[in-house]
Each structure stands twice: as structure tokens, then as C-alpha cells.
């Protein structure tokens, strides 16, 4: 374990000292910052509700799942809160039990649609325990496509780029033959691989969370994002090792990476643009499943069953790729 961490730390240290690698690491973050300016309305994704303090605790909880909640006493106070400059919807319950929305009238888009949807959820829900997850989708629909596809493609990019970080570090070890120096220490081959992989597991997770923080995508399910990112990292790892082993120097590594990006973008664009009936032609690509997963997480339309299905598909397909190239990888690391 000590060795795995040392290898991971060395890779990291070495990576941040090289412009190209540093750039690969921060590019997705920079893109997220750029995207942030194009989609100011991503901001309005975080909804605000002014809830009457007399409302049921269950109702408050339900609303707080979709946005920021302020508890306010009485209709007058709610009205004056709603009249303030930002977009906030007041919600209270009338004597007869009916819900009432209080709005300024100049709110963006169909701001009333979401609270209505939430309320109808609560009311139809009183009997049945299971909540229909449709409520999630109503929020996704309100997101501009550029926010959905922009953010999911940047996260995917962060994942794939971390594979490139592995690849370039392996190329460095091969070129400088430092791997030979390691091969005459007690270090096991598996420790070497694990040390290199650690980069691909940690880096994209950090980046993914920084990206959604920059883009203010506060309403998505963090655990789902974590699982999806880690599952997708396996693809990046395989790519990274393949690039590292097949390329004899950095230039060749970059060329191979460009080729690989083609495969990544084809999977992404296919998943986004192909009609449902054609999607099955992409099922073989683990990146297809990552794309679908990330998009649904960003849109908040993914169920846990979906996430597990996508993750298992990714792992299975990646494993097949690994089996195909196992011999090559093994040989490449001993040289």
C-alpha cells in the first residue's frame, strides 16, 4: 500500500510540473468556467421557495429536495419576500387545505410549473408510499440543453483526460526507462498498476465535483455522480494504459489520444443525437453508457436501477477490452 501511494504521489508531482499534463488536468475546469458564462440560466435551476411556517413538515421536506427553502410567518411576510428582486415562489395552505402559490408575475419561464408539480406530488402521494420519480424529470426539462450536454461532456472529458495523464506518465517511465529501475525493487507489477490507476480514480471525482460546483448544478444526486464517475474511470484507465504501452514517445501518445477522442466523441454525439431506435448500435461502447448515465444524472432523471445498469455495462465492456489487450499490457510493462 505504501508503494502504491508513493507511485501515485510521484505521478501527481511529476504531472503538475509539466505544462502539457497540467493543462490536461485543468482544461475541464477552465471549460466549465467558460460554460458558466453561456448558461446564466443554469443559475435559476436552484429554485427558491418561501414556505408558510404553518405548512406540514413533510411538505417542507419535499420542497427542500428541489430548491432552497425559506420558512416565513404569515401571508403578508411571504408576499413582501416574493416581491423582492430575486425569483422566489411563496407557498401556503388555505383554510380548506388547498395550496396557494404566491408569485410576483415576472418570474422566468414556467416558474410556477415546478411548485405545482411538487404540490400535486404531495397530494396524490398521501396514500401511496412510493413517490413517482417523474417530479425529477420536470426539473430536467427546464434545463437548457447546453447546460445538460455541456456539463455532462465536460465531466466525461475530465474522466477521459485523466486516462491521458496515466498514459503520459507511463510513456515517461518507458522513455526514461525508469520502469527498469522499479523492476529491480521489491515492487510488484500490480502495485505499479494500482499506483497509476489511483490517479484515474481520484482526479475525475475531484474534477466532476468542482465542475458541478462551478456550474451550480446543486440539485443532482451526488452519490449517483460519484458512482458513475468511478465506473467510467475504468474506461479511462484502460485507455491510459493502452496509450502508454502503444506509444513510444509523447508525440505518438498525443496522436493515439486524438484517435481515441474520436471514439469518445462518436459515442457522446451518438448517444445525444441518434434517434432511440438507432441507439442500440452504440451499446457496445462503454462510453455510450457513461454518456447516458451522466446526462441523466445532470438532468436528474436517473434512477438507481439505471445507474447500476449503466455501471455494470461499463465495467463489463471495459473488462472485455482489458481481456483483449491483457497480453500487450503485460508485455509492455516488463520492457
Amino acid at each position: 500500500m505504501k508503494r502504491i501511494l508513493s507511485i501515485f504521489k510521484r505521478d501527481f508531482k511529476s504531472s503538475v510540473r509539466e505544462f502539457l499534463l497540467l493543462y490536461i488536468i485543468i482544461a475541464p475546469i477552465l471549460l466549465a468556467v467558460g460554460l458558466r458564462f453561456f448558461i446564466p440560466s443554469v443559475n435559476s435551476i436552484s429554485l427558491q421557495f418561501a414556505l408558510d411556517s404553518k405548512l406540514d413538515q413533510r411538505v417542507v421536506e419535499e420542497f427542500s429536495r428541489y430548491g432552497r427553502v425559506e420558512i416565513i410567518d404569515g401571508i403578508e411576510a411571504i408576499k413582501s419576500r416574493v416581491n423582492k428582486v430575486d425569483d422566489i415562489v411563496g407557498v401556503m395552505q388555505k383554510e380548506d387545505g388547498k395550496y396557494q402559490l404566491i408569485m410576483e408575475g415576472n418570474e422566468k419561464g414556467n416558474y410556477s410549473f415546478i411548485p405545482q408539480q411538487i404540490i400535486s406530488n404531495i397530494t396524490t402521494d398521501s396514500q401511496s408510499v412510493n413517490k413517482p420519480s417523474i417530479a425529477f424529470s420536470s426539473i430536467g426539462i427546464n434545463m437548457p440543453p447546453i447546460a445538460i450536454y455541456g456539463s455532462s461532456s465536460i465531466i466525461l472529458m475530465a474522466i477521459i483526460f485523466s486516462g491521458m495523464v496515466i498514459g503520459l506518465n507511463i510513456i515517461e517511465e518507458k522513455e526514461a526507462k525508469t520502469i527498469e529501475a522499479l523492476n529491480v525493487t521489491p515492487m510488484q507489477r500490480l502495485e505499479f498498476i494500482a499506483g497509476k490507476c489511483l490517479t484515474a480514480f481520484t482526479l475525475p471525482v475531484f474534477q466532476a465535483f468542482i465542475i458541478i460546483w462551478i456550474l451550480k448544478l446543486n440539485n443532482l444526486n451526488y452519490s449517483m455522480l460519484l458512482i458513475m464517475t468511478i465506473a467510467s474511470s475504468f474506461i479511462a484507465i484502460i485507455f491510459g494504459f493502452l496509450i502508454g504501452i502503444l506509444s513510444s514517445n509523447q508525440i505518438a501518445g498525443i496522436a493515439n489520444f486524438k484517435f481515441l477522442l474520436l471514439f469518445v466523441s462518436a459515442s457522446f454525439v451518438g448517444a445525444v443525437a441518434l434517434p432511440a431506435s438507432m441507439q442500440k448500435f452504440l451499446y457496445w461502447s462503454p462510453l455510450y453508457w457513461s454518456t447516458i448515465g451522466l446526462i441523466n444524472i445532470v438532468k436528474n432523471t436517473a434512477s438507481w436501477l439505471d445507474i447500476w445498469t449503466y455501471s455494470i455495462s461499463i465495467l463489463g465492456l471495459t473488462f472485455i477490452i482489458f481481456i483483449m489487450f491483457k497480453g500487450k499490457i503485460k508485455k509492455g510493462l516488463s520492457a
Partner: protein
Amino acid sequence: MIKVKNLYHSYSKDQNYAVKDVSFDISKGELFGFLGPSGAGKSTTQKILIGLLNLQKGHIQIDGKDIKQRSRDIFNHIGVSFERPNVYKKLTGIENLQFHSEMFSVTTEDPMTLLKLVGLEDAAHKKAGSYSKGMLQRLVFARSMINKPKIWFLDEPTSGLDPTTASIIKGIIKQKQQQGTTIFMTTHNMHIAEEICDRVAFITNGVISAIDSPRNLKLQYGERFVTIEYKKTDSLLSESLSIVDEAGKKRINEIISNYTVETMHTQEATLEDIFIKVTGKELK
């Protein structure tokens, strides 16, 4: 400590051998020199011994264990200095040693102490990418000592070094040998080999042609010469003559009785002379 028997190696996996039927034994605490010209198969032999090349044919035992069955733990006691410096260029000298030391599960030397030993303390915090060839050479040499090895493999430890630095490195090797380290050293520097090796092997074209101590090799192959300068009429002449064979002895007598001898020096054959005599090849 190291036993090699009938070792063959072919890079092309055919009859074209880079190393052919090589056998030698190195006992514990011995400094064994592997001498030969470029392309002789020295590095190939070392790479097979340390496991960087597969053992194709032959038997090798290190510390009593067949290398085919060795566990990676044995590398805790092995140090390797490479012919071509293989260090991380983006890491500093001290970071390189520090990282390498973390690979071992035995107590290791302090990186700074080692850098001081090889005269790299001023460059310790500079990136290895900015080191000169000789500095890199010293860095890999220092790195090979980090785990206080019992068995030490040195591939050309002094090549590319200026005489002063080479002599410092030589001193360190000598000192380690006195502390009981078993050392396998390849070199084409005959002077260093002659001076510090307990035994040497001559290798050319993948074949060993002699193995013995430098002293024995000289006794066996080295003729002793005298160089005589004498006056014949007006000119000063000089001749090198063997004091071992009859013709030489006779000629020396002739000169002494007939001419005025100005100077007379006895001269020992160097290891280099003997190498040429035994293998029929120059060292470089």
C-alpha cells in the same frame, strides 16, 4: 553468492547469441569485474542476472536461490546501477532517491547522505532534467546504494566521468567491498579493474576467454619487459625486450656488453596488454 552456468542469450531468439555459454561463480564479498569491449555482452549478462531479461538458457543462482523461483523480496538486498541513467527528469535528485527508497521494505540510507557521498549535494534540489551526463551517472550510482544492498550490480559505473570523480566512485566501490558487499561490475576501464577487482572475466563477442585475479593473469600471460636506451655510435637507440624468453635475454646481454647503456627500466604488462593478448581484441 552468484553462480552462472552455461548462460546463453539471443535477442532474436535464434542461434545469433549475444551471450554464449557464459559460466562464472562470484563468492560472497568478492568484487568481480566483467571486462570487454562495446557490444561484448556485458550489459546483457547483467540484465539477465537482475531479471530485466528473461533467462532463455542456462542456470543462475543468486544467494543460493534459482532466479527462476525468486520472489521479489530478494530485491530488498540487491542494488543496481544502470549503464544509461534512468531517472525521473521532472523530479529533483533528492526526490528521485526518496521515491526509490519508498519501494523497499528494508531500512534505507538517507538520500542526502548519499548525494553528498557522490558530490551532488549542491544539485540535490535541482531537477534531474538539468543534470549533466556525469551528474546523472552519479545519481543512478547513488540510487543503487539506497537499500544498503548485499549484492551490487554496477554497469559501467565510471564511464563518462572525469578522472577525479571516477576516482571518488572507485573509492566508494572499494569501501563497500571491504564492508562485505558482493559486487558484479562491468567496465571497459582496465585501470580501475586492475586496481580494485578481486577477479576479472574477459568477455568478447559474448564469450568468456579468461577468468582470474588481475595478478594471476599477469603472472600467467604477462611477460616482463626491460626497456633499454643505449648509444650506438652517435645515435640514441631504445629497445623493449622480454626478460623471460631466451632470445630476449640473449639480446640484453649483447647490448650490455657492446654498447653504452644510458637507461634501463623494467616494465610490467598492464591488464590491457593482457586483454589484447588473450582475446586478440582492443578494448575500445
